[in-house]
């Protein structure tokens, strides 16, 4: 085929991008700020930490360590000794369902609902 890009490709690209952007928008609209952070190691829950308390938690696995930090109701991984360091460069998470994953250490840090309601107080 001599052509580099035809209508078919444009349609494919537009369809995929539209679907992806739409689902992204829906995810943002439907998501709430989470109350706690659940740490999974190897598929099992290791600990649950509240997001409203600043904390540093060292996740130790057989394969290495990850330093989980909670600051300003956001969670992120400050340091890790995994070979790729993707988890350290990840953006901070705070919305329900968001995760930071360290594949080599099989660590998943997930924002979960928690008992916290969204409002501190409601006036009537």
């Amino acid at each position, binding site marked *: 085929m*001599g052509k*580099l890009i*035809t209508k078919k*490709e444009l349609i494919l690209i537009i369809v995929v*991008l539209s679907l992806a952007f739409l689902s992204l928008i829906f995810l943002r609209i439907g998501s709430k700020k989470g109350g706690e952070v659940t740490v*999974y190691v190897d598929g099992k829950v290791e600990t649950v930490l509240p997001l409203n308390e600043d904390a540093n938690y060292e996740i130790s696995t057989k394969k290495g360590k990850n330093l989980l930090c909670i600051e300003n109701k956001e969670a992120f991984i400050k340091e890790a000794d995994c070979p790729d360091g993707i988890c350290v460069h990840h953006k901070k998470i705070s919305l329900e369902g968001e995760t930071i994953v360290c594949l*080599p250490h099989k660590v998943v840090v997930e924002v979960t609902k928690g008992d916290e309601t969204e409002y501190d107080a409601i006036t009537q």
Partner: protein
Amino acid sequence: MTQLPSNHLKRESQKKNPVRTIAFLGMYLGVALVVSYLENLLPLSVGIPGVKLGLANSVIMFLLYQTNGKEAAMVSGIRIVLCGLLFGNLFSIIYSLAGAAASLLGMYIVKKKQWFTPVGVSVIGGLLHNIAQILVAMCLLENEKIAFYLPVLLIAGTVTGVFIGILVGVLIKKTKNMQVFI
């Protein structure tokens, strides 16, 4: 719409020489490895894992268009294992192999049926690659929330897919009358 690549005609008229095959495959493997390494050196941190250019895939895809797929699969597989041993770890090999297998299979089918141009083939390859990797990650880590990465990855994958597709398409055109394989 059917086209007879001149490379095929050339190949038929020459005896298959296993030494030449290995030499050529080794060359492509070397290029793929170097490209992988270089890409690794400049980390374009987007804050989301898995977003990368995938330039090494351009080598594999170019190879796909020069051969019937088996050679591309070989170079792809060996490249992934070597890269994993050199720069990564066992898990990275598993994820990459899953992604590459799905993507190569899809690209082979789409290319054979001539549904798309190289750009389309590349985009489909990229999409399948991301989907397969997410699925494997979800299984190995037993966490379904990982699927939330899919929209962003698909967007990035489509963009890089177009870029790689254009690159490979141009390369194919420019090397149409050259001996680039066997």
